[in-house]
């Protein structure tokens, strides 16, 4: 069951499993994308949910909001092309041991859309190295064959970073849109296993 929660509310529905901060242009991306939404009354409840170890997923603008809240490190800057980019691209699954990726295999390549202007991940160099060493990158842009590199990174993100997770492994932020890739009628169903993964994980955790 899915509930929409109003941004001015201060509590999540009882027994919430997964919290999704979806894409969109919260507050028109004014000031900095995600900055104003990060101050919404509901955010405290989202932080509490995350600290209890339950999954939180930020997609696109949701990822930007998570970095502004501080649930994830870094920031998302303008694409190097200075263009909004809407397109299908390929990402490689770097970890299969997260609540979100259990139904994928490590190294699997997904065809999945992006649609953003600010998707270039940023962290100061040292912190970026630490992030990589700790294995917190979950998705990386790549060629259809799974090769990573600048040529296959549409927005200029360093190391092709498309999605990262926190150390605890329950807060995932990603620029690509898994919810736009759940039916082949619309071009791809490669995002569907993500939802199945997190569903299984929650069932396992809650014992339902």
């Amino acid at each position: 069951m899915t509930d929409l929660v109003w941004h001015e509310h201060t509590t999540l529905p009882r027994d919430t499993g997964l919290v999704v901060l979806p894409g969109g242009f919260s507050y028109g991306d004014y000031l900095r994308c995600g900055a104003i939404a990060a101050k919404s009354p509901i955010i405290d409840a989202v932080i509490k949910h995350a600290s209890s170890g339950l999954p939180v997923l930020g997609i696109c603008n949701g990822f930007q909001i998570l970095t502004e809240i501080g649930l994830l490190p870094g920031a998302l800057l303008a694409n190097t092309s200075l263009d909004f980019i809407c397109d299908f691209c390929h990402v490689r699954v770097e970890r299969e041991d997260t609540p979100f990726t259990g139904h994928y295999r490590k190294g699997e390549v997904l065809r999945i859309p992006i649609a953003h202007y600010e998707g270039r991940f940023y962290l100061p160099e040292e912190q970026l190295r630490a992030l990589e060493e700790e294995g917190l990158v979950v998705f990386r842009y790549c060629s259809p064959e799974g090769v990573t590199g600048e040529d296959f990174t549409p927005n200029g993100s360093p190391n092709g970073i498309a999605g990262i997770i926190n150390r605890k492994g329950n807060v995932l932020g990603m620029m690509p849109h898994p919810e736009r890739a759940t039916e082949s009628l619309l071009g791809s169903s490669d995002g569907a296993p993500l939802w199945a993964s997190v569903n299984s994980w929650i069932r396992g955790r809650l014992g339902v």
Partner: protein
Amino acid sequence: MRPDHRAAGLSDAEYGEIIRTLGREPEHAELMILGVMWSEHCSYKSTRRLLSSLPTSGEAVVQGPGENAGIVDIGEGWGIAFKVESHNHPSAVAPYQGAATGVGGIIRDVLAMGARPVALLDGLCLGGQSCPEAAALADGIVKGIAGYGNAVGVPTIGGKTLYDGCYNSNPLVNAMCLGLVPLDGIVSSRTARPGQLAVLIGSRTGRDGIAGAAFASSGLADDTRSSRPQVQIGDPFVEKLLVECCLEIHSKGLIVAMQDMGAAGITSSSSEIAAKSGTGIRINADLVPLREEMEPWEIALSESQERMLLIAEEEALEEIGSIADRWQLDWAVIGEVTDDGLFVMTKGGREVVSLPAEMVGGGCPSVQWPSRKPSGGVKGRGVPSGLLDPPETARCLSTILEDPNLAERSRIYRQYDYMVQTNTVVPPGNSVSIFRVRENRSFVAVTMEVDPWKCSLDPFAGAAETFLKALRPLWVSGAKHLGMTNCLNFPSPEDPENHWILERSVSGLAAVARDLACPVVSGNVSLYNESPSGKILPSPLVAVVGLQDCNSPPLRDSATLEAGSVFLVGDTQGTLGGGAFSRIITPGAEHNPGDYVPLKEKDFMERALKTVRKEAAAAGRAIAGGGLMTSLAKMCIKADIGIGLDSAVLDSDPECLFGEWGPRAVYLVPERSTELFLSCWEGFPVRRIGEITPGGLTLDGHEMLPEETRAEKAGRK
């Protein structure tokens, strides 16, 4: 001092008419208001008579012209509201904001019908790419559409873009929106009753775009910079709130009538409601939430964006207010519906405007401009074009594919979020754009066309062909048309030759609408598209909405097939007039336009629809710009397939290989479906012209499409 009526944009005759009707001289604010409301942009005074010749009713039509948008029935109690509207002049002076507010305005038009906006398309006629000024305008326009459409969360699923030097300083930006509406939840602007209240919701009012409508009704001044203060600024975030807020208020049944505030703002929205409802309306300017101090006439005419006018019963007010508050939108009761038939505006308790609502919002006297057939003659002479051997054919093809007008458009549409709302089945970059409607499990297909070159060659046949170019791909994809909307982009109608071309173009559209039963449900007129550097070519733009049930998936315009036949349906020969070959390969040569033969089009339609219903083909593409060879090349590039053509069944003249006009299409058919396919096309010209091969587009063994071109065009480099 009383402003001169001419400075307000009124002719002596119009001013005389005003004095006769009122029995007095108009006050200052009244004069300013009438100047705007009687402008071409608001009144359609030059085209009203012409537009009345367009067929507007039909089986699927739920709402024809006269409302904020037309509506067609898509079954099971659902309708699609749609309209296209120009924002040409604003985009010429401030490309980003002009295009952005064009998108915002058309979204509100659809919203005003009670519909949820679900798709956008844009028709862009841009200047030559070698002109830096035009390139800067083009860039700003695309960024503006992206900036607004992406942020407001409505997918931009397609459109039409073309380039010609005539648009260098006068680009055309025609924005289209489609909205989904339950047929029992349509909102009208003609249902207000005396005693009800006028509620303004949305942004505060400022001096934006004062008299923008009048601005759109004259040619562009020499220095477009001096026109800048008139440009409105769009706020897609507030628009998103406004859409959700109005739909929520509507879902509670609290709206009696609704109008968006576009050109001429409060004046047009409120006076039109009064005129259409047969009531009066009394607006208190003191109650309008303002950003700055303003004169009453400025408040009346401000074009500040992201505002809607709702008519509601007094009892509904509390709930409307609490919904608007929740969406953090300003709102205010600014007046009431009266029974005196007058449009009244008060300020500080004093009546500053008191005019018959019908006179303000019901249009002004029509203007009949003289017409004269252009003296030079508009038709070509039909120069024989000679034969092309295969190497020459290959050279022509590669030159045509290099032309910006034939190039694919991913650099533009990648900047638009075409997937948001997750219903886009066939995205931009295809012959049709298709989205699905979950509510009744159907597919809605949309196409948009404009062909200034064919229209300038022969306005009647050219406009008809423009319309048909929008219809044929719909049919080939399997969708039956339901209705059309159009935007008549032309230069000044005051020039008799321009006016003749305008008249003939409208006749061409009317003929197709009538013959093929594709009624006109909404539309817009943009005249005076001229600048000191010249006037635009006649550019009537047509958009058609079609419906396909979900039992047979839409037929794509290319497919990756291992083996199969390639069929040409329709005449072997096309016509070169106004087409890519004549424009690019033989500029200066005069070629005749094609003929419009309604029966042939109908035959084509029936067979194309049957082909999809019977699933008799793997892919199909209506032949359009660049003719047969270009269509084949695009199929090869897109699906990375090869096609070997059999020269024995093709003629080697440009009419066959590159000709356009008329119902012709190419189909890819798997061997097992050949018989079925042929049975679908029985009684119509059809011939097998080649077969699918592992790679390359070959004619008589000659490669037509070198690997570099294929890779580059496919974006594989």
